[in-house]
């Protein structure tokens, strides 16, 4: 397998607070290959968005990367000086946010925002940048792009605005696009369109995607691989079909069991008892141990590491430790 585009190794994100340091991400490791779509799922507060923010270097203070490394095509980016990191943002890593209604500056036209972004990263004249902007809008499916480009964000509907946001995120041809719940704020009817546009345009430009969502349906249809986060720790990562159909981590299994399917005839959906622990109350050992149906003595004592399984799957659960070797990190 070729070298991955993005490689996250043992990423630790901490928030110093008055009552001690909270560890919001604990030794999270994963790769994204060239052109791959990696889905990132988990409950609210599991650390999905935080992972995205850490990669693009926009953690909100006082949050900070306390350990680990982030590599983008062989170059370490988690410790770049501010100005260099700024040039990575937009140019090499694009980001799409959740709410298109608030992602665009209301006081500037779409053209102004696009052209500003393009010219920040590319050596183009105003005219060339504008032509490029129109092309982008056209590509993301804005009808009559050449005319509508001079409209203000409030002239567009939510779905159209998210298309504009995608155009902005892709304006400078980034190699990686981090989409943080890109459809959560949209009507169900336009969600699929937006996902399609995002997927198509990234595929056509060879950009990899990190798709953060809690919608397993979107993941199942879009992602190549999926990573499951629980309480700031990676529970399981693997090809999307395998993980959905044969989850290995008890948490993932519970998560999949709680999703209704059309063919299912069960009376009740399974649910995982309890709720995810708060960051200041993560139990010793495995974070999932109070809720795990298969918990045993070791889970209360040691924190499991990612264990490699067949077909490029990894799971952090002691159930699979038997004689497997641990994945080496770094």
């Amino acid at each position: 397998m070729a070298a991955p585009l993005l490689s996250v190794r043992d990423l630790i994100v901490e928030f110093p607070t008055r009552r001690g340091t909270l560890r919001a991400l604990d030794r999270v490791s994963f790769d994204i290959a060239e052109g791959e779509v990696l889905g990132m799922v988990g409950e609210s507060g599991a650390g999905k968005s935080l992972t995205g923010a850490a990669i693009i270097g926009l953690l909100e203070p006082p949050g900070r990367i306390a350990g680990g490394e982030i590599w983008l095509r062989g170059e370490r980016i988690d410790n770049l000086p501010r100005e260099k990191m700024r040039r990575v943002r937009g140019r090499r890593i694009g980001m799409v946010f959740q709410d298109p209604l608030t992602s665009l500056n209301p006081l500037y036209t779409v053209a102004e925002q696009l052209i500003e972004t393009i010219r920040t990263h590319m050596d183009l004249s105003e005219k060339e940048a504008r032509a490029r902007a129109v092309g982008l809008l056209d590509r993301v499916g804005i009808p009559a792009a050449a005319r509508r480009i001079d409209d203000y964000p409030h002239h567009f509907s939510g779905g159209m605005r998210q298309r504009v946001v995608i155009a902005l995120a892709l304006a400078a041809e980034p190699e990686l696009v981090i989409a943080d719940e890109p459809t959560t704020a949209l009507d169900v009817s336009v969600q699929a369109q937006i996902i399609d546009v995002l997927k198509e345009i990234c595929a056509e430009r060879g950009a990899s995607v990190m798709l953060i969502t809690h919608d397993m349906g979107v993941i199942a249809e879009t992602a190549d691989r999926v990573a499951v986060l629980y309480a700031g720790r990676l529970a399981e990562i693997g090809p999307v079909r395998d993980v959905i159909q044969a989850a290995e981590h008890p948490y993932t299994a519970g998560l999949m069991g709680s999703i209704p399917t059309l063919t299912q005839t069960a009376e009740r959906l399974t649910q995982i008892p309890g709720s995810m622990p708060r960051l200041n109350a993560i139990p010793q050992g495995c974070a999932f141990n109070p809720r795990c149906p298969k918990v045993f003595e070791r889970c209360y004592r040691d924190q499991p590491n990612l264990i490699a399984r067949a077909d490029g799957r990894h799971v952090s659960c002691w159930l699979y430790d038997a004689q497997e070797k641990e994945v080496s990190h770094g």
Partner: protein
Amino acid sequence: MTAFILRRLAQSVIVMLTVALVAFALFRFVGDPIASMVGQETTLAERAEMRAALGLDDPFLVQFWNFIARAVTGDFGISYRLQQPVMELILSRLPATLELALVSGIMAFVFGVGFGVYTALRRGGWLSSTIMTVSLIGVSLPTFLIGVLLIWVFAVELQWLPSFGRGDTVYVGDWWRTGLLTESGRASLILPAITLGLYQMTLIMRLVRAEMLEVLRTDYIKFARARGLSNRAVNFGHALKNTLVPVITITGLQLGSIIAFSIITETVFQWPGVGALFINSVRFVDVPVMAAYLMLIALVFVVINLIVDLLYYAVDPRLRVDRANARH
């Protein structure tokens, strides 16, 4: 757009009529003007004659109508005290006040926005903390005290700047006497302008800071950063512009109060403006001057409000559409 301006103009007329009523009521309730105009030997008959000559025994509505009709043409009568047309008096004093108000308004806006942005971006820095602390003094010290302190430091102790008056003035046009073109005029302007503008500056600064912090937390600023725009473009292009919408309102209204509250500063610095004229008029119950001053200040506020509303249009595109849609 035109409909909006017309509507605002109509509202302005109503405001001005209301103020006119209050101003006119002054004539009836603030002492008897005849008493302050005549000596002790004047007979009752002479007083009645005078009252009739000045139209003071007409019915209320007639008097009010006459007042408005004359006010519209700029005729506010003759000052009881100085025996000159009120309009002439005010116009001769107005440039001094306007220059003072404008200079201190600009100072307040420029430094207010500058410090506000700085303290918002460098939150927690020692300079920001110093500015914020000093600004508390600006907010809490009364204007006259600031004026007196400034006089003491810069005029009495250091002797850098004059402590009173306007310095030398020259005429620009027929009636505009300006102090801005002479050195002593400019020197004389500094202390009063600081005194008058300090409070407004701290107010604008604190407002800009609060708004800026708010805007910096919004999604579109995060998205702008995620697109790799430079700090400069994000902070000044995107954040500051969004900050300015509420700041314009406050600044506009503050400009009105700068003109209105120049009374105190003008008194402290013996500045020959309309504020000082007003204070003297109050002392001598010179009602025509007081009434005219009241109308003038109301007019200033109304005009500034109108300008502020129009500025909204320039800054915020959402308003343009909403109004257009509302009309269709």
